[in-house]
């Protein structure tokens, strides 16, 4: 969870920078177009005018492509955010369902969730305003209901589902 705001703010900075660039580019181009139209009324056959018109056309094309690229970047960023939110929601659904299957009490659910987030006994006790001994006892009950040996296995229970590939057999690995 801690990594995503960084990705988001980096993406925001990137799109903001691109947008500022696009605005400056548009300002320059509009002034240029005005100048070209002014020249057009004076002498449309001069080399100066033709050259300036070509440069201006290139600038206009640049803005159109820049706009399109910026749109793509913004949409990509949003798609990533959405995918992350879906994955997050799915994982918390899985955890909720499993906690229910283990028949954890509401207090045990809270403690179990905090333990999964990586908080240690002292931190959980402080957050919940409970004694450390209580939290330790709750954790022990959680582990026994889940049939795991301890915190590492408890956390692995949920991560394992996310890792697609199975663990290679020792014999296979040796070959």
């Amino acid at each position, binding site marked *: 969870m801690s990594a995503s705001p960084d990705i988001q703010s980096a993406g925001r900075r990137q*799109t903001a920078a691109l947008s500022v660039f*696009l605005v400056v580019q548009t300002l320059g*181009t*509009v002034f240029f177009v005005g100048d070209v139209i002014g020249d057009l009324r004076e002498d449309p056959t001069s080399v100066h005018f033709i050259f300036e018109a070509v440069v201006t056309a290139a600038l206009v094309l640049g803005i159109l492509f820049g706009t*399109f690229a*910026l749109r793509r970047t913004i949409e990509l960023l949003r798609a990533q955010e959405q995918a992350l939110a879906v994955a997050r929601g799915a994982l918390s659904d899985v955890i909720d369902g499993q906690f229910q299957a283990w028949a954890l009490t509401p207090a045990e659910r809270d403690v179990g969730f905090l333990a999964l987030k990586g908080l240690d006994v002292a931190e959980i006790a402080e957050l919940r305003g409970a004694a450390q001994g209580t939290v330790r006892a709750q954790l022990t009950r959680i582990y026994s209901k889940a049939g795991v040996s301890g915190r590492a296995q408890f956390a692995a229970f949920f991560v394992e589902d996310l890792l697609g590939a199975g663990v290679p057999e020792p014999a296979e690995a040796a070959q």
Partner: protein
Amino acid sequence: MATPRTPAAPPSLWDPVVRITHWGIAISVLANAALDEGGSLLHVSLGWMVMALLVLRLVWGVLGPGEARFSAFPPDPVAALRHLGRLASGRAVRHYPSHNPAGAMMAYAFWACLALVTVTGLVMTSGATPMQVAAEKAAVASGDWSALIKESEGESSDEDQGLRHTAEEVHEVVANLLLILAALHVAGVFVETRAMRRNLVAPMVLGQRRK
């Protein structure tokens, strides 16, 4: 292209192009209306800036992401009136993926007025870019009045003068209309914020502050 989403609410943060063009135009219009003198270099430069920002916003309305595109908030006066009626009678208002219909009409009215005000401004200055205005003013300041003579004598057909006079009238009326629209716009945001219990200002600034 990503699949178009149809969220139930406007974005929690408008994209940077929408925000930059919004505040750039707002500040430039207020400055040109209240602070500087019509015809001054600053006035003309800000006018050109408004034109550039308007062009960018209109291009963005075709090429931009979903909620910034015109297709997300088509002009629909009937829906706008219905929306306002609901607001006035205190009934629950629908949430829209982009501007609500009344806000959309406001945006189109703004754009029409901005286009009109810049075009009439261009007619009044006969399309002089800020660079040309600056050069002209520098020439006059250094005692070379030929720039003015060329201006008033070279193209002083009656038709031209008439057109410029009309443009001046329209420029002034539309500029005042813009200020009225801006006041209505601010009032609308205030009412909508209270009726929908949703902050409409934050998405146009920096979005919700994250922890």
